[in-house]
């Protein structure tokens, strides 16, 4: 008798798990608070998911605005213990685990212009130091235009600060606190926050959008334009639980 109940429980666990997961997915997409954002191949690249896999998966590419990181007042709300003033480099407070939070990724805005200028300056400097090295102009064109500009502990607060969903993408992220030296003698450091990864970092492309995406990518590969341009644009939406889904794919 008990065996029968246990088997029924096992079957119920499978069914309830699927129903709850699909229900959560439905709730995520229904009345999604944020509008859509249209990104290109620069920000969403096709990634391999196993040699035999036929799945089409896109990886969200983003970058940091500079090497400074986010200051203490930005990362404290995430739970980091950030010292008010520089501390000795041996303090235990400097070794803190990464934490989950929310980040704002600005698309093709002033932060990207700064990143681009810095990359151009670096390329010019490298070619000045070594004239044999010719900068590849397409490498700058391939740069992602999504730049992490803000972090916070509450996604709704961030959305109120950055209401334009077509320019600002808010997602869950993993943030780490890294010690940064401020003086050598005595060795003093402070903490800065850096985005380690976004969650989810990959996005599943369902049929028939996956066919359109692969066709666009293959066509671009067969007939490459003279200067590099993205082969597709993808319209993406983030739901109320910050779980994304692809709304549309268009070849360029």
């Amino acid at each position, binding site marked *: 008798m008990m065996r029968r109940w*246990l088997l029924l429980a096992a079957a119920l666990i*499978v069914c309830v798990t699927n129903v709850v997961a699909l229900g959560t997915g439905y709730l995520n997409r229904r009345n999604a608070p944020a509008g859509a954002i249209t990104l290109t191949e620069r920000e969403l690249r096709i990634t391999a998911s196993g040699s035999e896999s036929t799945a089409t998966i896109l990886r969200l590419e983003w970058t940091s605005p500079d090497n400074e990181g986010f200051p203490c007042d930005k990362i404290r709300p995430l739970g980091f213990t950030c010292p008010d003033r520089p501390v000795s480099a041996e303090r235990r407070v400097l070794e803190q685990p990464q934490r989950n939070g929310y980040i704002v990724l600005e698309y093709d805005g002033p932060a990207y212009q700064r990143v681009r200028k810095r990359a151009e300056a670096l390329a010019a400097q490298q070619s000045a130091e070594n004239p044999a090295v010719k900068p590849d102009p397409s490498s700058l064109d391939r740069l992602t235009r999504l730049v992490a500009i803000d972090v916070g502990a509450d996604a709704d607060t961030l959305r109120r600060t950055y209401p334009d969903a077509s320019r600002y993408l808010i997602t869950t992220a993993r943030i780490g606190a890294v010690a940064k030296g401020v003086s050598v003698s005595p060795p003093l450091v402070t903490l800065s926050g850096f985005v380690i990864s976004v969650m989810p970092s990959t996005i599943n492309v369902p049929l028939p959008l996956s066919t359109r995406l692969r066709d666009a990518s293959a066509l671009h590969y067969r007939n490459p334009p003279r200067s590099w341009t993205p082969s597709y644009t993808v319209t993406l939406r983030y739901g109320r639980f910050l779980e994304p889904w692809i709304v549309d794919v268009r070849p360029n």
Partner: protein
Amino acid sequence: MSGLADTTREEAQARVNRINAFRAELDELERRGAISLTDEQRAQLHDYHRNLIATLSERFEVDRSRAESQLSLGLRIVSLLGAAACTAAAVLFFERFWGVLSTPVQIAVVWIAPLAALAGAVATARVERTLYFTALLSILAFGCFVMNVYVLGTVLNAVPSPRAFLVWSAFAFALAYTWDLRLLLAAGAICAITFFSTSILSWYRLPLDVLFSRPESVLLPAVLIAVFAQAEINRTRYGFSQTLRLAGLTPLCLALLILSESGTQSQIPLATRTVEHLYQLAGFTLAASMLIVGIRRRWTETVNLGAAFFGVLLLLRYVDWWWDVMPKYVFFLIVGITAIGLMVLLQRLRRSAGAAS
């Protein structure tokens, strides 16, 4: 045969093993002249054992000889390998055709897969008593359910959640208690520990894989699993208490080992060295407790794990204290002398346990 109503397969097998040992010892005693049975007595005893073994064999499919026992072990190993291979085949098959299936079909396939394997396990359990094929299909059902949840997460682009470990644990436990499957019991226990520890981490906004660098979250759930091993429901099932004790105590020992070596991974707001010393003390106390309790209660697996944990802890302390300050041959000599001392101590404990029994 009377008195077999509540007998389990493991108890039946133990009875057959005792009969075989008794027969061998009786032959030896007769050869040495220590005892002499009449032909009638010998025939009576032989008939009784033969009938009993035949009954047990028919009812429980027990191994009647050493050769059968070895073949059974082989069957268990092949069953495990078969389950692993079938699970890998199911996952890779799905991965291979994922791209040509629409989302509703993907969800339907991964939803049905564990239920189909479960139905297969129910069907085989009705026709076999040894449950080798049932075990294989149960492990396959568990593997398919893991794939089911993973695929749902991927299709919905969901953020990783500890709840996945809760449902995996519940499913593994349900199958383990249905057919007394120890491997799934261990899987369920490990998933339960992971669920509780990652839930604690989630409350503190820590990513799930920080589990390995914040091992304190493992301590409480691991202890709870080790305590749960003593519950009545486990003591009445062959090998369940041992499996759960190992599944609980192994992560507990590993967590203490990591914390005793790397105090920075602790959440305790004390100096790193102080934290390490506290966990070293806790580690030695746990190892000693496992040895003492294990010997007293005849928990072989606990004694073995405790001895191994004690040895590793001691070796690490020695390295910490002496590796840089003494010639290497002296260091290893001290390690060897300590091992001999431990052997003497364990032998005395063994003798006193034997005398007490």
